[in-house]
């Protein structure tokens, strides 16, 4: 029978549909690993097999190349995968590793209810030969959401300083002195996509740079599995679903890998709650980033380290999940840490006095009355206060007034970084160390479009980078790799400068309502004088570049803050403008720019949304092996490149880089 052109595709579609239907209800087996799983030699990973639509299995055989792994797997356990009514089975071989580099073919075959089924994965295993002579340190700086505009903003604000003679350190388009992270010799760009999203979060991006593998939104060093439907996307994240949040395949991060195999000392420093996603990826393994009680427990009893603590130094906010009052299990983890010999500090003053190698936990902010959340897996999320507030600078009118809540002696990030390095680098064992330092509120202040909070946090972050660079430069052995990057981008952009006078910028009594119509009705916003210096996403951001724009409407902004005459001198305008350069004065007491005072001309920024973006983010690097970080790279490459600096001879790269920077033959950027 000859099918005509119309009938053939229709039948084919039907046939394919039937086939898919038959396939979906037929027994099958799946190796629960991503298609492009990449591991280091010896890096631990859970191997999990999901057998669907079967009540029993036989003749299981699992091989990895020539190695038979069958005996490593548990007996099958009944499971209800995918939240359907079929009978399924799960087999686990936890914390396995591959010791032969190369592409390893993982083959699974079994009889599921007497039907023979198979699955395969190719796992790329990268060589890791630890260089015992080099014994290098790694310091990774993560500016959370610190895309290019955030670096630019920090530079434009902190390096446009007018001195007492009226000379601006940013003149005619050049800076006298660039940011610390600008001065690092190697730069690249990191693509940050997740397995399920173009726009990622700090958990799955952290999983990429900490383990070398990509995962889904909210995942901390784990891959998706068939029980995720119990909690993911339906919001059922609680103590009753915790078993499904913690059953995902885990993949070991670089912190535990180096500590477990080579006795590295490990540290995390953050201005967020210490169990937030970015620090969590160095010490925990859960499907859902907000399972804070479990993350805190794993910091103390790390599954990759046989139940030993994950870190020698932990500095940050968020004391609650470590307290007996905050924990559902009523364990006092702070007390348990101190019983193991950890020093516990809670203020900047105490931290200043901490030195030498004693393991240290510093939790600089928490709730007055910690309590377990009603979901049974978390507490209140208490981050440290942002740099702008710790510096006691007045907030612009649209940003909330600082409330330190009695925590008036919180350390700045540069002090935390300095002390972490001191503690980690002075152990009796003389072990090398790996440290992550996070500027967390670059992101957290960007979500509500709080420009001042965001920019000053980026400046604080850069000062911490400076501390590490200075420490590394003073060492006789050039043995410390410093990498500075972001986990993902946010939506801020540089839109010009602003002449908004202080009396408007800080005036909380002068505001106006802006209303605009949407399909969901009228939406109202309150705008203040600073809102035009820092155009917020909620505003009707009218594109005045062209009347043909789809954003067309009345050109300009609402009346109250707009100049009455466009021809007015920009110096009397409250508009932001392309023209001119920023001008700030320096607070000699703190070393930070002031955001007020005579002659100030502020950087103007705009926010397109209040959320992350999918844009790539900059990477800069310095130290042995830094040249590996050049070019466009995937975020998961950071893991392998950091590992490569410890396991390979990078001297040729380092010589080439030295020639490039110090050889005197090649052009240099002004201010570097």
């Amino acid at each position, binding site marked *: 029978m000859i099918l005509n052109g119309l009938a053939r595709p229709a039948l084919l579609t039907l046939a394919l549909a039937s086939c898919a239907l038959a396939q*979906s209800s037929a027994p099958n087996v799946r190796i629960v690993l991503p298609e492009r799983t990449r591991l280091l030699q010896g890096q631990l990973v859970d191997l999990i097999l999901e057998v669907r639509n079967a009540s029993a299995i036989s003749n299981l055989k699992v091989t990895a190349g020539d190695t038979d792994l069958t005996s490593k797997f548990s007996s099958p356990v009944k499971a*209800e995968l*995918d*939240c*359907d*009514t079929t009978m399924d089975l799960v087999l686990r071989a936890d914390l396995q590793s591959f010791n032969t580099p190369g592409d390893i073919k993982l083959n699974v075959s079994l009889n599921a209810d007497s039907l023979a089924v198979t699955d395969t994965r190719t796992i790329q295993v990268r060589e890791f030969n630890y260089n015992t002579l080099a014994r290098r340190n790694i310091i990774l700086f993560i500016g959370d959401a610190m895309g290019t505009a955030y670096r630019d903003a920090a530079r434009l604000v902190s390096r446009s300083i007018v001195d007492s003679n009226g000379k601006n350190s940013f003149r005619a388009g050049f800076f006298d002195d660039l940011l610390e992270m600008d001065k690092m010799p190697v730069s690249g760009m990191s693509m940050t996509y997740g397995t*399920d999203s173009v726009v990622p*979060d700090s958990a799955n991006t952290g999983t990429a740079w900490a383990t070398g593998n990509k995962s889904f939104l*909210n995942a901390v060093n784990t891959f998706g599995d068939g029980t*995720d*439907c*119990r909690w*993911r*996307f*339906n*919001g*059922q994240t*609680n*103590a*009753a679903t915790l078993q499904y949040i913690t059953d995902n395949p885990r993949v070991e991060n670089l912190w535990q890998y180096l500590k477990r195999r080579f006795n590295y000392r490990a540290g995390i420093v953050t201005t967020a709650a210490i169990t937030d996603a970015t620090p969590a990826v160095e010490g925990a393994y859960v499907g859902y*980033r*907000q399972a804070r009680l479990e993350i805190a427990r794993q910091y103390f009893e790390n599954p990759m380290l046989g139940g030993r603590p994950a870190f020698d130094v932990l500095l940050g906010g968020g004391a609650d999940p470590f307290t007996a009052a905050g924990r*559902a299990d009523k364990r006092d983890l702070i007390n348990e840490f101190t019983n193991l010999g950890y020093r516990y500090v809670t203020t900047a003053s105490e931290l200043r006095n901490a030195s030498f190698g004693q393991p240290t936990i510093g939790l600089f902010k928490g709730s007055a009355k910690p309590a377990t*959340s*009603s*979901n*049974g897996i978390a507490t209140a*999320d208490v981050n440290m206060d942002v740099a702008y507030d710790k510096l006691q600078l007045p907030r612009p009118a649209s940003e909330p007034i600082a409330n330190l809540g009695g925590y008036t002696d919180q350390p700045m990030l540069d002090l935390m970084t300095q002390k972490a390095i001191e503690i980690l680098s002075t152990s009796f064992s003389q072990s090398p160390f790996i440290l992550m330092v996070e500027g967390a509120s670059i992101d957290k202040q960007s*979500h509500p479009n709080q420009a001042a909070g965001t920019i000053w946090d980026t400046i604080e972050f850069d000062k911490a980078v400076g501390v590490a660079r200075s420490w590394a430069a003073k060492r006789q052995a050039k043995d410390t790799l410093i990498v500075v990057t972001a986990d993902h981008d946010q939506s801020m952009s540089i839109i010009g400068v602003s002449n908004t006078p202080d009396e408007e910028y800080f005036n909380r009594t002068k505001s106006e309502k802006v209303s605009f119509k*949407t*399909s*969901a*009705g*009228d*939406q109202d916003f309150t705008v203040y004088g600073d809102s035009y210096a820092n155009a917020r996403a909620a505003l009707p951001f009218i594109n005045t570049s062209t009347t043909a724009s789809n954003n067309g409407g009345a050109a300009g902004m609402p009346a109250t803050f707009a100049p009455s005459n466009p021809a007015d001198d920009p110096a009397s305008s409250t508009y932001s403008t392309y023209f001119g350069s920023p001008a700030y004065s320096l607070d000699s007491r703190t070393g930070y720019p002031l955001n007020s005072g005579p002659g100030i001309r502020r950087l103007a920024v705009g926010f397109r949304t*209040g*959320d992350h973006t999918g844009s790539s983010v900059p990477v800069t690097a310095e130290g042995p092996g830094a040249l590996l970080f050049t070019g466009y790279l995937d975020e998961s490459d950071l893991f392998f490149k950091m590992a490569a600096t410890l396991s390979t001879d990078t001297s040729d790269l380092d010589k080439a880089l030295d020639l490039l920077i110090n050889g005197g033959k090649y052009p240099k950027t002004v201010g570097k």
Partner: protein
Amino acid sequence: MRFTAVLLGLLCAGPVFSQIRQAADPQIKEGQLTWFELTETKQQTAKALGMPRMVAVFGQDFVSWQYQIGVVDHEEYSHQLVFRTSTHALISVTRNYDPERTVDELFPDGETTAHYYPNAEKPQYSLRLRRLSNGRVLMAMGTSKAGQVTGQIVLIREPELRYFYPWLFEQLNPGGQ
């Protein structure tokens, strides 16, 4: 039925921002609880709550619509609605509260039961449950008695508990009755 009437009223009038807020939370009117009937179509749901911020397919037969209505933490969603992909039926509405709050007005003593996971002897988790008309149940997650705050209420078709809360389904239907 009452909410359907309210919802239809919203649709006829054309949704406005204040009406989205009204649909966002259960309402008590003249002593009656009105919220989603779980018979709403996707179109009706979109008109009541607006378009979701994120749509995600999951499990074997589910799609989730996630909303951020009002002030919420950026990591979380204010509402998570689950439809079956095969039938397009709305099966559950999850409403998250941050900060947590009491919802006692939705759970009158005589109509509310407390349930414990895995059991009442060694509870690791609890919820209060109220059966509503048309096979719906409303749950205050993480609470066991009046006066306790919750971060979440869930409205769900009772048969669907089988897939998302098998322990609760078993307690409500011992032996699969």
